[in-house]
């Protein structure tokens, strides 16, 4: 099988990830819930994981690195801290339902900064326009999970800072895959999964906190137990209940892998694979490929359609040939509206540090054959 669905979750992980999680099951207890050796070993692992994330994303204080169960969990904390019913919230035209559904549920006044695909200047202008109309909050994905479009997040963060508008960044597709600097952005929150570009197990995520958050869950934290309100300090304020320490142990190894290999190197590898894939698929007569003209604005995700083929059906056929990719709307109808693909959906191939050029050539060949079989 050739795995091309890393935008959903990376399946090939560094060997140390599974080994660490397996070791954790029988050796790590609950961090902060006891003074015995397995509890303290778990605490050491959790702290090492916070420190590794703080280094990678330039967070000055590891207490501001909070464990979540996925990016959606972190986004819900962030959004429900900063948005209220009627809050005017500016979002990009490429947001995932993990952003738009919580905003809808809150009854926020959502203003979409619409812009054409792969046009960073237009995305920035749209944000400026919407922010200047007045905003309580901005939420922006760093990289579109459908098209791999890299939003100009540094410049958008600058606009928000100038206007005093708090910014939440959805780094689901960028964490570990594209350079990301928490301190430089000055964001209120950055949410990310642990199981995609950070190569941790599923059920892990991180929330980097620049603002003071409101807890989404209340419960035991192993601290200030006499009080019936949640602690007012991080990370305890947001980490009620037992941690996913087996996941955190794996995530630590994933972070170490990314740190060793280097985000820039991973980004360059993935971008090169996607460029080759896009150019190769363009040669198929029936293929419509969403490949940016400017390579620097597309990360390791590529969407395409095959004329006369339902995307789900095409995904199924490619799956039968051993290619794992995703078809449909990818939980991001807004992104499809922006690219005018809402009615058809797309096929999406996404890569990781573990994909190879040879795999991409096989995939291109398979799509060519599938396309040719239509005529």
């Amino acid at each position, binding site marked *: 099988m050739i795995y091309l669905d890393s935008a959903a979750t990376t399946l090939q992980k560094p060997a140390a990830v599974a080994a660490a999680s397996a070791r954790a099951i029988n050796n790590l207890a609950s*961090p*902060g819930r*006891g*003074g015995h050796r397995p509890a*303290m070993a778990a*605490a*050491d692992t959790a*702290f090492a994981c*916070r*420190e590794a994330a703080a280094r990678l994303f330039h967070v000055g*204080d*590891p*207490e501001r690195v909070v464990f979540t169960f996925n990016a959606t969990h972190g986004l819900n904390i962030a959004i429900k801290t900063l948005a209220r019913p009627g809050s005017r919230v500016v979002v990009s035209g490429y947001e995932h339902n993990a952003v738009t559904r919580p905003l809808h549920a809150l009854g926020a006044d959502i203003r979409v900064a619409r812009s054409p695909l792969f046009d960073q200047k237009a995305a920035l202008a749209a944000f400026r326009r919407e922010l200047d109309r007045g905003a309580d909050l901005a939420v922006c994905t760093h990289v579109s999970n459908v098209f791999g479009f890299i939003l100009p997040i540094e410049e958008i963060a600058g606009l928000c800072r100038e206007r005093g508008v708090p910014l939440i960044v959805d780094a689901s597709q960028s964490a570990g895959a594209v350079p990301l600097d928490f301190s430089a952005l000055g964001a209120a929150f950055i949410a990310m999964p642990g199981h995609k570009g950070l190569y941790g197990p599923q059920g892990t995520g991180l929330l980097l906190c620049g603002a003071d958050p409101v807890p989404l869950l209340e419960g035991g934290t*192993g*601290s*200030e*137990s*006499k*009080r019936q309100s949640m*602690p007012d*300090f*991080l*990370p*305890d304020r947001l980490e009620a209940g037992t941690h996913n320490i087996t996941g955190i142990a794996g995530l630590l190894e994933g972070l170490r892998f990314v740190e060793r290999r280097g985000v820039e190197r991973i980004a360059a590898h993935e971008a090169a694979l996607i460029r080759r894939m896009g150019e190769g698929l363009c040669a198929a007569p029936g293929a419509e490929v969403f490949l940016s003209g400017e390579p620097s604005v597309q990360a390791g995700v590529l969407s395409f359609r095959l004329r006369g083929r339902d995307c789900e059906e095409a995904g199924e056929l490619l799956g039968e040939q051993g290619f794992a990719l995703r078809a449909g709307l990818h939980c991001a109808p807004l992104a499809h509206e922006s690219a005018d693909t809402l009615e058809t959906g797309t096929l999406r191939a996404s890569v990781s540090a573990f994909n190879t050029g040879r795999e991409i050539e096989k995939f291109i060949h398979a799509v060519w054959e599938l396309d040719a079989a239509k005529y």
Partner: protein
Amino acid sequence: MLYYLIVCRSLTYAQRTAAALERAGITARVLRSPKSIAGEGCSHSVKISQRNLPDSLRILQRVGLTPKRVYITAGDGSYQEVAL
């Protein structure tokens, strides 16, 4: 043996404190705070030897981790707060 306990607001804060001391060559161990000094219930402390308190306080101040409460063990096993 006499030792000091630096009581911290959270486990993570205690870990940061211990890490800063260890980096400076001072042996520091994170442990659950004794119930009598835990404050609002459960908390964690950093244990350091008696001779290391002045250096520890200087280092922690330098890295922005100034302790809020420090205790010293008494001969009868109780703890006495140290005025900082």
